[in-house]
């Protein structure tokens, strides 16, 4: 079996955080792979929801968009998009929401809107989509992002979705009662907000990753937990299921299926 890529490690580490009882609001890309990997391995009972309205879906291949037909074909049922955002997301029925972004700060606030001035942008990013409300209505938030000093930044030019704001008490002051980001799963490590400061803290390093590598890919001085762990390497089963899933997906999206 080929060597594990950082991207695979990230997806597998994210999948492990999911429980069979979770109701998960799934985004496209790494979150979708992680959620379906969890479903196909240790969490067969997990309920996957995509914002297109598909509830309890079991796609055989990963969707390219959040509304591929595969999602509807294999869903328990499909509701309208207003209902999805009103009854299901705002309704407080989702235990875990997955987010990613172009940029993140030390309090796990995310930017997927713009780099530079909003009215005269240097880079116009896609925007928030479901993220602003996913960030506040899901029981907790998992974030998956590849590390890099342009992505993990000291100050965000624009806050697209709320993490822990400016630190302890930020969410509470806004009347938000959910936990917010409880873990950030990267290609190098897992970070969790410190219980007291809410600042992201490395709690687990992936096999082969070093503190120096993490610091080099992060725009702020990184904090490391006292009892830092090594992320267990992917098992053969995890890797096989993930690679099969990606292979099926590639074939399907290239039009071969």
């Amino acid at each position, binding site marked *: 079996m080929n060597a594990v890529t950082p991207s695979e490690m990230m997806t597998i580490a994210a999948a492990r955080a999911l429980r069979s009882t979770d109701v998960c609001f799934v985004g496209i890309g790494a979150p979708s792979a992680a959620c379906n990997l969890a479903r196909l391995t240790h969490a067969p009972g997990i309920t996957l929801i995509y914002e297109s309205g598909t509830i309890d879906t079991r796609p055989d291949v990963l969707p*390219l968009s959040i509304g591929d037909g595969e999602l509807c074909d294999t869903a328990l049922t499909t509701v309208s998009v207003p209902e999805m955002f009103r009854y299901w997301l705002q309704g407080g029925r989702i235990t875990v929401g997955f987010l990613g972004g172009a940029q993140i700060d030390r309090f796990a606030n995310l930017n997927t809107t713009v780099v530079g001035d909003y009215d005269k942008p240097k880079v116009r990013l896609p925007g928030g989509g479901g993220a602003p409300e996913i960030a506040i209505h899901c029981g907790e938030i998992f974030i998956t992002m590849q590390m890099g000093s342009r992505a993990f930044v000291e100050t965000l030019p624009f806050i697209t979705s709320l993490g822990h704001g400016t630190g302890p008490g930020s969410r509470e002051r806004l009347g938000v009662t959910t936990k917010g980001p409880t873990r950030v799963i990267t290609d190098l490590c897992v970070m969790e907000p410190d219980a007291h400061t809410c600042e992201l803290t490395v709690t687990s390093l992936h096999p082969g990753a070093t503190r120096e590598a993490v610091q080099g890919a992060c725009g702020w001085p990184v904090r490391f937990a006292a009892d830092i762990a090594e992320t267990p390497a992917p098992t053969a089963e995890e890797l096989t299921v993930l690679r099969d899933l990606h292979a099926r997906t590639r074939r399907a999206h290239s039009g071969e299926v």
Partner: protein
Amino acid sequence: MASFTTLRDAVAAHVRDGDVVAMEGFTHLIPFAAGHEIIRQGRRDLTLVRMTPDIIYDQMIGMGCARKLVFSWGGNPGVGSLHRMRDAVENQWPHRLDIEEHSHAAMANAYEAGAANLPFAVMRGYKGVTLPEVNPNIRSVTCPFTGEVLAAVPAVRPDVAVIHALRADRRGNVLIEGITGVQKEAVLAARRSIVTVEEIVEDFGPRSPNAVILPHWTVGAIAVVPRGAHPSYAHGYYKRDNAFYQAWDAIARERDAFLAWMEENVMKRADLALEPAR
């Protein structure tokens, strides 16, 4: 009241320069054929409303149809940027494009409020984020019972809604199944509407008693356009053309390649809008 016509006549009659146009379809059933006909007919100064601009608005923006874009997520799903939209926002090409940006939840609620004939929508949202600072159409209301402050956005009330549906019956009732998105809301919120369909059937036949149907007296022009959602898809008819969505990235990245593709695949294909109602 539904009338059967060609797509060309439907667009000519219902889409006017300067209109607020909502072309909906959440990944599924995106009305590409109708968008192409609007481009061919040279509409200008449109305010384009759509949760996910997708390739359809990338094309319309790049071809100069739009003055303003109202949206909530402007990427090519699973692929990357919408290069024509970015070029318009970042470089004003082919001309300046104003934007009004929301979250998905806000847009979905705004369509729902429009369908319900309410002036605004209420939601719990937009907490701790920057968007309300740059969008004056994000305001607040206070609950008269609890004192809680909630977010408010104006209802979407387009001049014309354009959707693609699976099929219509002979009376002009329109059936949608699968991922229904906000299409029903868009049509009910709009003053006028155009519905393209895969086919017209005598009768819908056996179906769920709760099937998603727009009665004939709620829709405007109906035009038969088989594969009218391609490269999006139609549940039970054809799949999403994910290969095309991936290919679009290269087509749209440079202005010349984009214009050449549009000339060949859209501008020269007026014949596609002439399918008679059958």
